[in-house]
């Protein structure tokens, strides 16, 4: 097989090459390093770890000497820059954490290492995961894998582009309001936000604790199922992780959608009706029906409130989570004064970027005395309402389908001047975070600008297998798309 074909392979196929000793991990790692070099201008990675080759050699030794190796032996992964890996920098794409070296390793990262993975580098992102275009990175934006004029999406833009440009076999992102699914959609890869509590958040720098999950980004659906099984599970370090046994997602995927009850939400699709991509969504609905599923239009009252509700809850939690960055313990100190209060203010003002500052202030607005009931408490009520409604839907339906975003990736600079227009981009993705249910983006063709589009599939809590079944069916059988 040619080198340029090898880097395009997914986890399962590459693993075969390594295990059969057709190629070594070192060889594979070098192939990815040259891909990284080639696509360096995309600015997907903030750092390539200099010990990647050493680690690959160690794993090669293990394989050669016939030792038992892990489920990801010798494969190369990229992690988002908000994930701690002991001894490596983790900056959250912020100037504030420019020099922060992780004193411990995140559980999700450790799980990759335990399976003998090679972690090749850390991926660009929006600062502290706040943004949907990767334009909020203190280290420059990340370009779309398919176009240099378009955004990668965000916040896990670097993680998605790294997979799409074959700089690694798969990557980890984190998804608080769509941060895995939207860049996955924009770059034609598979991205999952699992059920809340499925993957440990320990060692992931927190943005909005009650909403976020680590999510695998892969080249195909089966890889994603395989990777999630490795990442998922109870962790003593994260009280919000779920104790339910992790299924073998690959084995529990079934064939086809025949007999499945699917639905889409009327209120959401109405927002989409004027879009030039509506016909495409309609086409995929027909595809499901033709293949034996039923697809119903359903009503979910107040669903449009999910977006502002999300922004209230996420910013409230973020305000509190980001209080620890104060120029005292980890972050860069900027201080010309001998007054502790001024030290805080000067360090934080110099350290955080504009979007992070806006969100910290919004969080304080909705939490502060006199506003708390009207905003934060009310938002929690709306969240409970939407969550209840959605969970009831899943009592009757196997899955809900919707777009990931309004369309293809937008142009760099197109929305960065207007924060609210950027927030509106998250309309379809925040729903799964608000309700805690699993959701994924699976590529389903290209849009008018020849950029990828993702279809979003949401299922009931802990029913990732069903989500994978549907996504896999789309991946293997759906040939639609206005582009081709």
């Amino acid at each position, binding site marked *: 097989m040619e080198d340029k074909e090898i880097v395009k392979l997914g986890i399962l196929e590459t693993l075969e090459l390594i295990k059969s000793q057709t190629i070594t991990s070192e060889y594979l790692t070098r192939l990815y390093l040259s891909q990284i070099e080639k696509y360096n201008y995309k600015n997907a990675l903030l750092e390539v770890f200099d010990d990647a080759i050493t680690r690959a050699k160690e794993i090669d030794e293990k394989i050669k000497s016939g030792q038992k190796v892990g489920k990801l032996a010798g494969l190369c992964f990229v992690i988002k820059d908000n994930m701690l890996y002991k001894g490596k920098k983790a900056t959250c794409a912020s100037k504030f954490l420019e*020099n922060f*070296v992780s*004193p*411990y390793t995140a559980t999700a990262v450790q799980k990759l290492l335990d399976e003998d993975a090679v972690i090749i580098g850390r991926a660009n992102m929006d600062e502290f995961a706040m943004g949907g275009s990767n334009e909020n990175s203190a280290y420059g934006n990340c370009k779309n894998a398919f176009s240099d004029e378009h955004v990668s999406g965000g916040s896990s833009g670097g993680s998605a582009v790294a997979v799409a440009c074959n700089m690694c076999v798969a990557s980890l992102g984190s998804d608080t309001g769509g941060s895995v699914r939207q860049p996955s959609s924009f770059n034609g890869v598979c991205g999952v936000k699992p059920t809340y*509590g499925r993957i440990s958040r320990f060692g992931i720098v927190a943005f909005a604790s009650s909403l976020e999950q680590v999510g695998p980004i892969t080249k195909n659906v089966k890889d994603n199922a395989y990777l999630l099984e490795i990442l998922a599970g109870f962790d*003593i370090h994260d*009280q919000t992780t779920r*104790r339910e046994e992790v299924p073998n997602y690959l084995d529990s995927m079934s064939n086809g959608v025949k007999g499945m009850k699917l639905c889409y939400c009327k209120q959401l699709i109405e927002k989409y009706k004027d879009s030039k991509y509506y016909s495409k969504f309609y086409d995929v609905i027909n595809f499901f029906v033709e293949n034996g599923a039923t697809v119903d239009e359903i009503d979910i009252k*107040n669903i449009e*409130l999910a977006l*502002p*509700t999300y*922004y*209230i809850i996420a910013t409230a939690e973020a*305000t509190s989570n980001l*209080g620890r960055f*104060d*120029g*005292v*313990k*980890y*972050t*860069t*100190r900027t201080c010309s*004064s*001998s007054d*502790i*209060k001024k*030290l*805080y*203010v*000067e360090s*934080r*003002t110099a350290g*955080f970027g504009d979007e992070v*500052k*806006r969100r*910290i*202030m*919004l969080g*304080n*607005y*909705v939490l*502060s005395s006199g506003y708390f009931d*009207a*905003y934060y408490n*009310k*938002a929690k*009520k*709306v969240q*409970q*309402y939407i969550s*209840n409604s959605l*969970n009831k839907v899943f009592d009757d339906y196997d899955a809900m389908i919707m777009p990931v975003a309004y369309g293809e990736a937008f142009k760099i600079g197109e929305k960065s001047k*207007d*924060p*609210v227009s950027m*927030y509106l981009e998250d309309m379809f993705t925040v729903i799964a975070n608000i309700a*805690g249910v699993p959701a994924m983006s699976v590529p389903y063709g290209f849009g008018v600008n020849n950029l990828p589009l993702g279809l979003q599939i949401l299922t009931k*809590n802990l029913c990732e297998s069903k989500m994978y079944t549907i996504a896999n069916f789309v991946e293997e059988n759906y040939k639609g798309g206005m582009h081709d």
Partner: protein
Amino acid sequence: MKIDFEEIKRLEKLSALSSSEEKLKSLAEDFNKIAEFVEQVKNADIEQTDIGYQRVLKIDELRADEVVPSMPQSEIVSNAPEKEDGCFVVPKVVE
């Protein structure tokens, strides 16, 4: 403008942030748009909802009271901009 400079300044103080006067203006504009955007939630007609699908933990699911080793002192303070004798150091705090 609904949220005036005074209010913005109050929020900055709570946030331990500060902006120059010229920046304050654009910040206030952005902030007002954002505040308007979240305003819909305040006005939403949602009756009291039941606890429904909220997850709760039982006491027996909590962590047992068993000691695990601490992190070495040197690693605890490894990222501190200023440290001395194993302590984080800040300018003198007067109570």
